[in-house]
């Protein structure tokens, strides 16, 4: 439909001059259509695809930073073998999923609960929304720094806990970040602090697009609050929930900033996420070809997750749009 009208109006270049000729050339249907596409695709190919092809090549080399690249020799699948048999790689991968899973569950539950409460609040609604969205805008590095201050052995957390610790006769200056379990929790809590605002935002948007007629109708027909929530609101909120889960999970698996700021992966390796682990291998130990093989393997692993994620997003998006159409 759009094609026909636009093709019919292919105008001739009337004015002279290089600029107008350029304008006329630009206004041609096919040129106009494809320039942005070619530009963006070109960028993706240049900045993402070619580096990955290079990385595939490097992953078959035997290369560390102490030798020039040109002298590196092919070594077959040796790097892949090393990565796959590396205990640190698997441990940090598992830890990443553990951190992401725990954090995302808490974020979803708290975010949902807060959105539900704020949705029902009449007075001061805007203030709550503004306040609750602030953590999301704080630079993650700064958030990590803030939490490192709170967990200090002479920080406010220990001060708040000191009545209890005194009662139990423990030294109140607990070094939270020196204990593996506490350090892991610290990172999860920092993540929850920062990203609950995103799930809150998504759920709030879901709540505010609920059709009021439907809920009123149910109420008139005699449904109680619980029935309305479980049988009407929750099913209608499903798209928002799926979108929140997918987006947050994909982001949580990238966890890196708070680890660097809070614990440097320690104590031991107890807070190394996969991003931190690879960063250390490549940038601290200069194991380039090892890192290359690992990032190719990770890409393969993650692309499976990403495809599932995108597929879920598309499905929910279509549903959500239908819902909004019926709501309006």
């Amino acid at each position, binding site marked *: 439909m759009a094609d026909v009208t636009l093709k019919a109006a292919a105008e001739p270049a009337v004015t002279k001059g290089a600029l107008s000729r350029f304008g006329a050339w630009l206004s041609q249907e096919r040129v106009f259509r494809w320039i942005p596409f070619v530009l963006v695709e070109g960028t993706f190919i240049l900045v993402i695809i070619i580096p990955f092809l290079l990385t595939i090549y490097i992953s078959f080399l035997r290369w560390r930073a102490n030798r020039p690249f040109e002298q590196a020799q092919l070594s077959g699948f040796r790097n892949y073998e090393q990565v796959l048999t590396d205990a640190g790689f698997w441990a940090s991968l598992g830890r990443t999923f553990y951190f992401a899973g725990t954090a995302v569950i808490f974020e979803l539950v708290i975010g949902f609960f807060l959105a539900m409460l704020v949705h029902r609040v009449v007075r001061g609604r805007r203030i709550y929304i503004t306040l609750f969205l602030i953590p999301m805008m704080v630079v993650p590095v700064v958030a990590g720094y803030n939490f490192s201050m709170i967990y200090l052995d*002479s920080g406010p957390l220990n001060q708040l806990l000191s009545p209890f610790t005194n009662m139990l006769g423990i030294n109140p200056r607990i070094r939270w970040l020196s204990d593996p379990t506490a350090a892991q929790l610290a990172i999860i809590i920092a993540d929850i602090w920062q990203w609950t605002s995103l799930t809150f935002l998504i759920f709030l948007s879901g709540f505010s697009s609920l059709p009021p007629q439907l809920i009123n109708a149910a109420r008139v027909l005699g449904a109680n609050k619980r029935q309305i929530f479980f049988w009407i609101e929750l099913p209608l909120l499903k798209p928002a929930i799926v979108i929140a889960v997918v987006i947050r999970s994909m982001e949580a698996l990238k966890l890196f900033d708070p680890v660097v700021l809070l614990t440097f992966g320690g104590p031991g390796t107890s807070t190394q996420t996969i991003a931190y682990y690879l960063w250390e291998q490549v940038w601290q130990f200069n194991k380039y070809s090892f890192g290359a093989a690992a990032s190719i393997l990770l890409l393969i692993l993650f692309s499976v997750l990403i495809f599932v994620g995108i597929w879920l997003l598309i499905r929910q998006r279509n549903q959500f749009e239908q819902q909004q159409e019926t709501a309006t």
Partner: protein
Amino acid sequence: MSNAHSKTQAATPAGQKDRRRDHMPLVRHAILIGWALIIMFPIFWMLQTSFKDSGEWVTWPPNWLPQDPTLKNYQQIFTFDVSGSGVAREATDQPFSIWGSLRDSLIICTLSSLIALFMGTFLAYSISRFNVGGKKFRHMVLLVRMIPPIVIAIPLLMYYAVLIPFATEAVFGARISLFDTRIGMSILYLTVTLPFVIWMMLSFVDEVPYTLEHAARIMGAGRMYTLRKVVLPLVASGMVVTFLFVFILNWAEFLLALTLTHPDVSTLPVLLNKFQSASEGRLYGPQAAIGTVITIPVVILGIAIQKHLVKGFSFGMLRR
């Protein structure tokens, strides 16, 4: 309980209902205020640390407000003179001044966000109107965003530090490296934020009715003219929102900046991290001051585009 609201008793005794209405909002507000306090606490702690002098940074018990408020920390990061008096300044190898990083951050973020905005807007327009790239293309774009940055960082390190110098030497006879340059970082940020721009702008462009353009075209306006005079004014506010959103993302980015710049270029998050490993132990005060300086502008920008944040983070899938 479930009978209380049945059809016949739709009008429950007024007194009972009122009593329930009375305390529910209170509980609600109490919970919400509690969460607000939890949220604001780390930020409050940073703010008050930034006004503390070095002796007060780590004391037991900690002071909740600076006993002797001082602007020393801000002075320290904003003064141009690196060799002046200060806390163990000569013992560390990193210059304290924030200006270099501030300049780098501003240049990189502005440049990359602007270029991404223009490329993304035009692509969004041609996807929306001509369905360029097919139906699946807009979803494939998301792929770029969802790949973990560490997976991109390693290839890019090799690319910027090895392949490009190698290739430019072969072609132009001079080694040009994008590693540790502002241009290199801008290109990278531009690429990783393009998916956001495309999706946000798609949701704005899709809202512009096609009939408007059609009318302009029938009246003899050229394609560029229609775009400039009809479409762009209508999506201008959307472009501003998208620009700010992408700017905030780039401003906060840490991993790629940490891995692909080392001595020369450093963005603000990287600068904050450098204070961590200073040989004199951590410098809590200046760190807090830098944190405050980095955070305040983006929080203000974020509040300004608050209504559209959900659109940005959900790739335009949620609208309100």
